[in-house]
């Protein structure tokens, strides 16, 4: 699955995107977030306050938990500030 990071999340994590296999024990979006928090200090800090993070799965906003298959494009980013 492809994971994308934008704006300060990209800077905090230090990369714009990565391609990973669905990690062991991760079957849902919430589980993926918990897994992300365990990937070291930069991830732990970036994902500490999920109120400051928006999530898109396959380029659509997702606010509830959903099941993941491992083929998704998942993006994590701050609230948008365009316009």
């Amino acid at each position, binding site marked *: 699955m492809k994971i994308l990071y934008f704006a300060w999340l990209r800077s905090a994590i230090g990369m714009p995107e990565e391609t990973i296999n669905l990690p062991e024990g991760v079957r849902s979006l919430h589980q993926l977030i918990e897994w992300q928090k365990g990937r070291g200090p930069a991830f732990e800090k970036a994902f500490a306050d999920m109120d400051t993070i928006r999530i898109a799965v396959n380029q659509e906003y997702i606010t509830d938990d959903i099941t993941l298959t491992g083929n998704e494009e998942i993006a994590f980013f701050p609230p*948008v*500030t365009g316009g």
Partner: protein
Amino acid sequence: MITVQREVFDTGAEIRKMTADRTDIGAVVSFTGLVRDFNEGKGVQALTLEHYPGMTEKQLAKIEEEANRRWRLQGSLIIHRYGRMEVSEPIVLVVTASAHRGDAFAAAEFLMDWLKTQAPFWKLEEDPDGSTDWVSERQSDLEAANKWQQSD
């Protein structure tokens, strides 16, 4: 029509294109957003707009469809730039055309309010001293978008 581009656009030319060869348009509203030299009390010398290619176009298309569902429009256009832009350069353009002014005004304001809270763009501000900061979400933008919520 929606366009996401790095290049500067020309508001007047876009309005002319929308109305050319049309005889059924009574009202055209345009909104142009520009880089201004201050934000939230701080000086600004330039902005860099980051976006999410692919999702940006999808979200703008959805917002435009919704505007056309809610109002009777003879034309609608969103152009949003990305990349670095200096003070007084245009960032975003919305144009709406209708038989009547009420529809054109409401749709243009709706497009801007939704775009501000839904389209995946992020602004990085450069201060006059060269330091940079990601712009924070504005409570007033959320409130502006909320006023368009429908119960159905």
